[in-house]
C-alpha cells in the first residue's frame, strides 16, 4: 500500500545482464552491416532515424528563428524556402515513415509472434540499404540542387523551378521501395510465422497496427513512386503531364500526390497507436478495453484513409459534390480514431496505474491525438476549411498529429522498450522531467500556430504582416523548450546505455509476449518454438512471481 506511486515496478534484486545476447554476438562493424538479425537491423534503423530526427529538428529551429521577426531575420527567402523543404522531406520520409515500423516493428514483431526472425531476413537488410541510399541521394539532391518546392512538390511550380529537383524525386522514389519491402516482409511474417497459440485475435495490438500500416505501405507507395517519376521526367525532359500549356493538368498531380500522401499520414500514426495500446496496458496493468474494436479500427482507418484524399483539394476548384463526398468520408476516419480513444481511456478504468515516463507520453498522446484529430474533423468541415486551407491552422493541425502523436508514440516506445532492447533502465526522474518539458513545449509551439491560422497567416511565409508577430514569438519560444527536452533525453539515454541499472527480463511486470525473452534478447530470440497460452494484454490472472515467467535463457 505504501509503495511509491511514481516509480516503475522494481526488478527482482540481483537481475543479471545475460552473457550472450544479440548485441555482443559479433562486435565488428562488418557483423553489424551484414547482419540478418531483425533486432540488429532495427538498431541500424534506430541510428538512422535518430540522425534524421536531429537534422529535421535543426531545420525546424532555423525556420522558427527566422520567423521570430516579421522581416528577414537570419536567412534569405530562398534559403528559408529550402529549409522548409528540407524539414518536411527529412522528417516525413527519413524519420516518421520508418520510425516505428522499421525500428520497433522490426525489433518486436518477430518476438511478439514467437518467431526467430521476419519471413525474409535478407530483404529486411536490403530495405535498410535501400533506405540509406535513397535518403543519401535525396539529401545530396536537396543540398546541392537546392530544391525549394516544399515537400508537396505542387506542379507547375515544381516542374518549372530553376532548382534541380530530379535527384530529390529519385531519392523519394527509392526510399519508397524500402517502405514497400518492409511492409511486404511484415505482412508475410504475420501471416506465416505466428507461434502456436498466437491466433489472429491473440496477437498483440501493436502487431495489428503494424499489419494495417504495412497494407497501406504496400498499396499506396507505388503511386508516390509513379508521381515522383512523372515530376522528375517533366522537370528534366520537358514532358507535359502537369503543364496546362501542353495539355497537361496541374490538378492531376495533386490527386496522385494526395492519394499516397493522405494514407501516408496513417502510415505514420497507426504504428504509434499500436505502441500506445501496448504501453497503456503495461502501465495500467490492465487488459485492453475492447481489443477487437481497437484492432478492427486500425484496419478501418487503413481502408477509409484511401478515399479521403480529396479533402486536400477543397479550394482547388473541384466540384462541390466531390468536396462533399470527400468530406463525409473523412469524418469516418475521425470515428475510427474516437473508438480507439474511448477504448484507451476505458483501459485505465479499474487499472493499477504507475506514473512513469511511458505513461506521461500516453497522456500527451491522448491529448494531442484528440485535439489534433478533432481539428482534422474541423478542417474536413468544408466551409471552415475554406478559411483555414494552407494557413498555419493546417500546419498546427498536422503537427499535432504527426509531431504530437507520432513523437509521443516514438518516445513512449523508446522508454517502454529501452530496457528490453538494451538490457538497462533509464533514469525515471530525468525522463519525467523531459516528458513534461516536451509536452509543454509542443503545446507552446503549436497552439499559437492554430491561432495564427485563424488570424489568416498563410503557411510557407518567409515574411509576414506585423500583426502576427506576438504569436510567432510565442511559437518560437515553445520550440526552444521542445528542443531542450530532446537534448535532456539524448543525454540520459546515452548514459543509461552504458551505466543504467540492469533491467532484468521484465522490469515493468508486463504481460506482453516480448517480455518473456531475456533483456537484451539472444540472437535466436527463443531456444525452442514458444507456446503462448495467455492473451498478450491480460492482467486478471497473474502468477506469483511475474519476473520468473519466461522462456529459457
Amino acid at each position, binding site marked *: 500500500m505504501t509503495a511509491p506511486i511514481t516509480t516503475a515496478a522494481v526488478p527482482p534484486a540481483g537481475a543479471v545482464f545475460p552473457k550472450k545476447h544479440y548485441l555482443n554476438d559479433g562486435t565488428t562493424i562488418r557483423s553489424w552491416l551484414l547482419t540478418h538479425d531483425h533486432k540488429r537491423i532495427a538498431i541500424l534503423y534506430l541510428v538512422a532515424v535518430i540522425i534524421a530526427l536531429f537534422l529535421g529538428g535543426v531545420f525546424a529551429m532555423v525556420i522558427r528563428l527566422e520567423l521570430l521577426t516579421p522581416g528577414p531575420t537570419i536567412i534569405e527567402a530562398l534559403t528559408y524556402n529550402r529549409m522548409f523543404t528540407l524539414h518536411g522531406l527529412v522528417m516525413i520520409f527519413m524519420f516518421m515513415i520508418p520510425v516505428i515500423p522499421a525500428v520497433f516493428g522490426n525489433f518486436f514483431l518477430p518476438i511478439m509472434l514467437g518467431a526467430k526472425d521476419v519471413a525474409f531476413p535478407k530483404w529486411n537488410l536490403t530495405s535498410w540499404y535501400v533506405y540509406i541510399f535513397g535518403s543519401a541521394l535525396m539529401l545530396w539532391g536537396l543540398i546541392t540542387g537546392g530544391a*525549394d518546392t516544399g515537400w508537396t512538390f505542387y506542379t507547375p511550380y515544381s516542374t518549372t523551378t530553376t532548382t534541380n529537383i530530379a535527384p530529390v524525386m529519385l531519392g523519394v522514389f527509392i526510399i519508397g521501395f524500402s517502405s514497400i519491402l518492409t511492409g511486404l516482409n511484415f505482412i508475410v511474417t504475420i501471416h506465416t510465422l505466428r507461434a502456436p497459440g498466437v491466433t489472429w485475435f491473440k496477437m498483440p495490438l501493436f502487431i495489428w497496427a503494424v499489419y494495417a500500416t504495412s497494407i497501406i505501405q504496400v498499396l499506396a507507395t507505388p503511386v508516390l513512386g509513379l508521381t515522383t517519376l512523372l515530376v522528375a521526367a517533366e522537370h528534366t525532359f520537358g514532358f507535359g503531364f502537369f503543364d496546362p500549356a501542353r495539355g497537361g493538368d496541374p490538378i492531376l498531380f495533386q490527386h496522385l500526390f494526395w492519394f499516397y500522401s493522405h494514407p501516408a499520414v496513417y502510415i505514420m500514426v497507426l504504428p504509434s497507436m499500436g505502441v500506445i495500446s501496448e504501453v497503456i496496458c503495461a502501465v495500467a496493468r490492465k487488459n485492453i478495453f475492447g481489443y477487437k474494436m481497437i484492432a478492427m479500427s486500425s484496419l478501418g482507418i487503413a481502408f477509409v484513409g484511401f478515399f479521403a484524399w480529396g479533402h486536400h483539394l477543397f479550394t482547388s476548384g473541384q466540384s462541390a459534390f466531390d468536396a462533399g463526398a470527400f468530406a463525409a468520408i473523412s469524418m469516418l476516419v475521425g470515428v475510427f480514431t474516437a473508438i480507439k480513444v474511448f477504448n484507451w481511456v476505458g483501459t485505465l478504468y479499474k487499472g493499477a496505474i504507475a506514473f512513469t515516463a511511458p505513461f506521461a507520453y500516453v497522456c500527451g498522446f491522448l491529448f494531442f491525438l484528440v485535439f489534433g484529430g478533432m481539428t482534422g474533423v474541423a478542417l474536413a468541415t468544408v466551409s471552415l476549411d475554406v478559411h483555414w486551407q494552407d494557413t498555419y491552422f493546417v500546419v498546427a493541425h498536422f503537427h499535432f498529429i504527426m509531431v504530437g502523436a507520432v513523437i509521443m508514440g516514438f518516445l513512449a516506445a523508446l522508454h517502454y522498450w529501452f530496457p528490453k532492447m538494451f538490457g538497462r533502465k533509464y533514469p525515471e526522474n530525468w525522463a519525467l522531467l523531459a516528458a513534461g518539458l516536451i509536452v509543454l513545449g509542443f503545446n507552446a509551439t503549436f497552439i499559437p500556430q492554430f491561432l495564427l491560422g485563424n488570424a489568416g497567416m498563410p503557411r510557407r511565409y518567409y515574411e509576414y504582416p506585423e500583426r502576427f508577430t506576438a504569436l510567432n514569438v510565442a511559437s518560437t519560444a515553445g520550440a526552444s523548450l521542445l528542443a531542450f527536452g530532446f537534448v535532456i533525453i539524448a543525454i540520459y539515454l546515452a548514459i543509461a546505455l552504458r551505466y543504467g541499472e540492469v533491467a532484468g527480463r521484465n522490469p515493468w511486470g508486463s504481460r506482453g509476449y516480448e517480455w518473456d525473452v531475456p533483456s537484451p534478447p539472444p540472437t535466436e530470440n527463443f531456444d525452442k518454438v514458444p507456446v503462448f497460452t495467455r492473451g498478450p494484454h491480460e492482467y486478471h490472472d497473474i502468477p506469483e512471481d511475474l519476473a520468473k515467467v519466461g522462456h529459457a535463457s
Partner: protein
Amino acid sequence: MNEFMRRMLFLPDQASTFALDVDHLHYFVISVTMVASLAVGLTAIAFFWKYRRRRENQATPFISPTAGFEVLAISVPLAFFLLWFAMGFRDFVKLSSPPPDAMDVYVMGKQWMWKFAYPEGPNSLGVLHVPANRPVRMLITSRDVIHSVFIPAFRVKMDALPGRYTEVWFTATKTGRFQILCTEYCGAQHSKMWGEVVVMTPEAFDDWLKEQQRGLVTRQDLLADETQVTPQGSLAQWGKQVAVAQGCLRCHNVDTTAPSTGPSWVDLYQQRTKLTDGREIIADEAYLTESMMEPTVKVVAGYQPVMPNYQGKLSGPDAAAIVEFIKSLRSDRTVPVTAGEEQ
C-alpha cells in the same frame, strides 16, 4: 458573445456575408473539440488518481466494453461529425454558387502580384475595388504557377490555376480596406504576394468606376508593363480584337445564331448545350475557357473536333477577354462592341 469568441480565437474582421456563418460553425466545432480533448485528458488523470498502483504485481479485473458502450462510442462522435458536415457543406454550396446578378471581376495571379480587371474596362494591380452589399464574383486564373486568393476578412479563398478558371463570390458588408494574401506557395516572393480589397459604398463605387473609365487612356501611359493593361476600353472590346487576331471568327458566327464550322457565339453564354457524347452542359466561363484550351474534350453535338488547341497561345487575360466578348453577344439586344472593328 460573438465578439468575445472572435477575439479569443484571433479571427480577423467579419466583413462579408459568409463570415458570420463560418465563424458560428467555427465556435461550435472548436468548443466541442476543446471540451472533448479536455474531458479525455481529465478522465485519464482522474483514473490515474483513483486507480494508481497500490502494490507490486497487482492484479486487475478483466473488463471489456458492453455492446451499449460500443454503440455509444461510435454514434456520439458520428452524430457530431455528421452534423458539422451538414452545416459546413450547406455553407460551402452557398460559397460555390454565385448569384446570377453578381458583378464579375477577373482576377489573375502571376509571380508575384495580383491583377484585377472589370468587364467594363478598368483594371488594376494589387488593389481590388468592390462595392459593399452587392455580390461580387471573382473569376480567377493564373499566368504561371498555382496561386491562391485569400481574403481572411471575407473567409473566402480560391486557388488560381494556370489554364483554368475557378470562381468564388462574396458580398462585402463593411467598407474599408482588407488584405489579400497568396496562400499557395509560389516561389521566392510568395510571402510578399499581397493585395488589398477596398470596399466602397455602392455610390462611391459607381463614381469610382466612371472615373476609371474616363481615365483609362492616361492610366495606360503610366503603366510600364503594357501586357498588364487592356488596350481597349472594355474587356469585351478587347476580346473582339483578340478573337479577330486569333482567327476565331473564321469558324464562329458573332452576328447571327446560325452555325458555321463551329457553333455560333451569339446567345452561347449560359446556354444549355448537348455534347457529342450525350452529356448536357451549361456554357459558363469554365466551359468556354476549357473549349479554348482543350477544344476536343467537350465537343458540341453536330460538330467535328477540328478546332486547334489555344493552350499557350492565349494568355489568361486574353482568354478572359474572349469570354467577356462572348457574354456580350446577345440576340435580344444590339451588340455593343464597335471599337476595334477590322473585318
